[in-house]
């Protein structure tokens, strides 16, 4: 799956949520959620677990706010969105996306912004782990009562936010000096191959979404 062209991966990740909202509930949402969760399985059980755990709070709030049929209808659509995003983040290495976008004629800086969004989650997770380790070394414990846990969360969240903001400045300088500037026409180093069958599949997904929209508006 990771060998597919980045645009194909993005097209799948975009089409599934679109179809989830366009097709009639709950069958449409159920079908797209099953496909999306199935895709996460191709990246390993860890991705599926992440998708399910991320979608779980949405289900909880839906069940508190709505009746059961509505909760199921919306919940399946939200699950499709979450699972599609988790899958594409796991399956699409940002450098490949940049190469593909640059090869397609996009500006390097626009491609970077797009790819950096995908790269942000693992980077932040790694930094949060380092901060947690550092705070633990200084005696912070995240166990105990709710008030204690909230204080611990604050001690973890604040350095994470501040260090991220600080890093933005330095990273901007570093990227600027390496000429990642608006309008830069980057040379693609190893552009991923874009086969005709994949291009056709992408158009097929667009056509499927358009057909679903037309059918619902009929």
């Amino acid at each position, binding site marked *: 799956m990771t060998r597919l062209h980045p645009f194909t991966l993005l097209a799948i990740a975009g089409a599934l949520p679109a179809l989830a909202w366009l097709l009639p509930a709950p069958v449409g949402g159920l079908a797209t959620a099953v496909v999306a969760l199935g895709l996460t399985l191709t990246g390993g059980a860890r991705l599926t677990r992440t998708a399910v755990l991320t979608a779980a709070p949405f289900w909880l709030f839906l069940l508190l706010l709505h009746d059961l049929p509505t909760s199921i209808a919306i919940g399946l659509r939200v699950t499709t969105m979450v699972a599609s995003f988790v899958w594409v983040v796991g399956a699409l290495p940002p450098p490949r996306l940049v190469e593909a976008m640059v090869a397609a004629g996009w500006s390097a800086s626009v491609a970077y912004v797009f790819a*950096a969004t995908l790269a942000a989650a693992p980077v932040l997770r790694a930094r949060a782990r380092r901060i947690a380790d550092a705070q633990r070394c200084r005696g912070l414990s995240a166990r105990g009562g709710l008030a204690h846990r909230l204080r611990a969360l604050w001690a973890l969240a604040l350095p994470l936010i501040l260090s991220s903001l600080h890093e933005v400045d*330095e990273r901007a300088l570093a990227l600027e*000096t390496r*000429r990642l*500037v608006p309008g830069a026409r980057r040379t693609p180093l190893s552009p991923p191959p874009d086969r005709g069958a994949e291009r056709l599949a992408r158009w097929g997904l667009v056509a499927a979404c358009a057909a679903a929209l037309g059918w619902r508006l009929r």
Partner: protein
Amino acid sequence: MTRLTLERVTFRYPATEAPALEDVSLEVRGGEVVALVGSVGAGASTLLLVAGDLAPRVVGGRLEGRVSFDGEGPRAIVLPAPWTQLSGMAFTVWDEVAFGPANLGLPRDEISRQVDQAVARLDLEALTSRDPTTLSGGELQRVIVAGILAMRPALLLLDEPTAELDPVGARTLWKLVRTLAGEGTAIVMATSELDALPAITDRVVWLERGRVAATGPAALLASDALVVANMGTTVAAVWRAAGLPPPYPLTVAHAAQRWERR
């Protein structure tokens, strides 16, 4: 011919009234190595940002005076922390080094040539297929320097470039600085490795609270004023602390000569 000129430059960061640089004038030509020395907050890093056209253009702030640059290549800066300088867009060290040249839009074969040369200069051949995020701080710093060199800068700005390097890595880098200067690159560096400077630098600029306090050849590092301010070489400081008379020796070799002549 490469030439960087700062004329009576005063720079203030956003939302501050106190200038980080005040009335600084400096000219650096291709082939020259200029070292900026001073205590923390003296303005050396800011001067590098101004020289690199990053302040105020990227960091904001207000600049008075004139900064001009002529050169056949770009001006590029190496910052002290290597982790924040990673592109985040490379699977391998080779790709990371190629990030800058690719952004310059160079043809692929030229990128390949420049990257291979930079990799060899920084002794990174064994690491080219490694994931940059798995490298140590010192290895990463060498990768970042290689990435900058692969862009063939006409003006190279180094901000504490040896902060993450071990002694061998630092010596390699200092030797490379001299080699690059010999090839015509203009180099301005801020460093606290004062003992390395006599063998590398053509000129020393001593900054204090944003102003140029003194400028001169490397021998300035053995002057009484710099030694008293803890900005001299270790040999000069030891000579003075031992109560031996000035002029203070700059290096161990100078000290040995002086000692033998006594």
